[in-house]
């Protein structure tokens, strides 16, 4: 049985292996992704982001309990940072997701951020597709931090939850504007701590400022992951947002946009690798580099010159 067949038939090992192969950019990656694509599109995708220490993993753990009570199956992609110095990573999100480690209908996969920004976003998207094709009803992406890469990662989600805590130094102003704008739902976790009200107020103020006649105003939910307080409410709000998106063609439009981004991405990727294949090691390319280094030529003109000689319009794009 090949890996795609196994995955579609519900073999967990095949799914796990497939995620590794696409994450590692293995030569079989494209075949796998092509093979599963027609089986995707059924899962609902939720993204969780927020500063480190905001308790996202525990929150996801508790949320999964609520989701499981409705009989829905869940896939989780949990992302932790890779050390830029050693390339290694300690992936510890499972520690906080103990309640479901024996539940065969919950599949948790830890991923390191590894190399490039774009790479992580792509790997996450691929992993989500595989979990979708595997048949998970809900797929959750949990990412650490509040940088650009997180914004890119959660762009793969249908609904994005931003988790904040009232703890000092975590006030709304310190969170990058980009991350606040992608939120469909805000969670103030550890809301039993002092200053929880202030955090809510700050979020509200920010939402008031940014009222460009939006049809969906992100709700703010207070939770305490330790006692599961507010988790049911979070799930209800998630469902509401899903309903909102499914009304009319909002969700379809979002997903169409995503497909567009995806295909552009692939095209860029393909062109890049073809271009690289053609120019790398050629004397033309090496000489141009040399000229630019000697300040005999500027890089812009250099790029134009090299591209003039490379025919990207040849038979590789017949139609």
């Amino acid at each position, binding site marked *: 049985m090949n890996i795609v067949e196994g995955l579609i038939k519900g073999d*967990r*090992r095949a799914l*796990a*292996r497939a*995620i*590794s192969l696409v994450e*590692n*950019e*293995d*030569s079989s990656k494209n075949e796998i992704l092509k093979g599963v694509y027609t089986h995707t599109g059924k899962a609902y995708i939720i993204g969780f982001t927020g500063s480190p220490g905001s308790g996202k993993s525990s929150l996801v753990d508790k949320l999964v309990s609520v989701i499981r009570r409705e009989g829905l199956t869940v896939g989780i992609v949990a992302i932790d940072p*890779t*050390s830029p110095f*050693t*390339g*290694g*990573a*300690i*992936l*510890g999100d*499972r*520690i*906080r997701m*103990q309640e479901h*480690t*024996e539940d*065969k209908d919950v*599949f*948790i*996969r*830890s991923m*390191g951020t*590894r190399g490039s920004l774009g790479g992580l976003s792509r790997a996450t998207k691929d992993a989500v597709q595989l979990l979708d094709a595997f048949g998970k009803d809900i797929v959750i992406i949990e990412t650490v931090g509040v940088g650009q890469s997180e914004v890119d990662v959660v762009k793969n989600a249908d609904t994005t939850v931003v988790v904040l805590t009232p703890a000092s130094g975590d006030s709304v102003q310190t969170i990058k504007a980009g991350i606040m704008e992608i939120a469909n739902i805000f969670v103030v976790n550890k809301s039993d701590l002092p200053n929880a009200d202030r955090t809510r107020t700050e979020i509200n103020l920010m939402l008031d400022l940014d009222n460009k006649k939006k049809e969906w105003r992100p709700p703010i939910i207070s939770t305490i992951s330790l006692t599961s307080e507010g988790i049911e409410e979070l799930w209800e709000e998630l469902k509401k947002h899903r309903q909102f998106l499914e009304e009319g063609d909002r969700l379809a439009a979002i997903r169409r946009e995503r497909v567009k981004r995806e295909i552009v991405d692939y095209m860029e990727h393909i062109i890049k*690798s073809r271009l690289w294949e053609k120019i790398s090691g050629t004397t033309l390319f090496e000489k141009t580099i040399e000229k630019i280094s000697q300040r005999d030529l500027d890089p812009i003109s250099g790029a134009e010159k090299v591209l003039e000689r490379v025919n990207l319009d040849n038979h590789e794009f017949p139609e």
Partner: protein
Amino acid sequence: MSKERKIRVLVAKPGLDGHDRGAKVVARALRDAGMEVVYTGLHQTPEQVVEAAIQEDVDVLGLSILSGAHMTLFPRVKELLEENNAGDILLIGGGIIPEEDMEELKEKGYAQALFTPGIPTDEIVEWIRNAMESKTSSA
């Protein structure tokens, strides 16, 4: 176009003891050697450990046991790996394990390698790298 393949290791603490100093030192050393280390947290059942190893598609599963339950836990984990068609995952371990028990565990194939307290973490890194090399070259 295959990139350099990352070695993935699951560091697991099955059983009830909470002595995780060794597990954490090893996890850090493996990370510093460029590996991806998934840590399960404490107090895991063999079922939880094996399920995690499968979902995370790890190459190596390392058990840290200091409670004396090694003669029960290693065979059980190995058995569950086989049952789940994951017998190819390398099973290694460390902790307070008397030498004759170590011999027995290795002889019966319940563990590929066992490391005693005090062993340099480099040796564990080295062992994993060598084992992975011979695994991929024979595959």
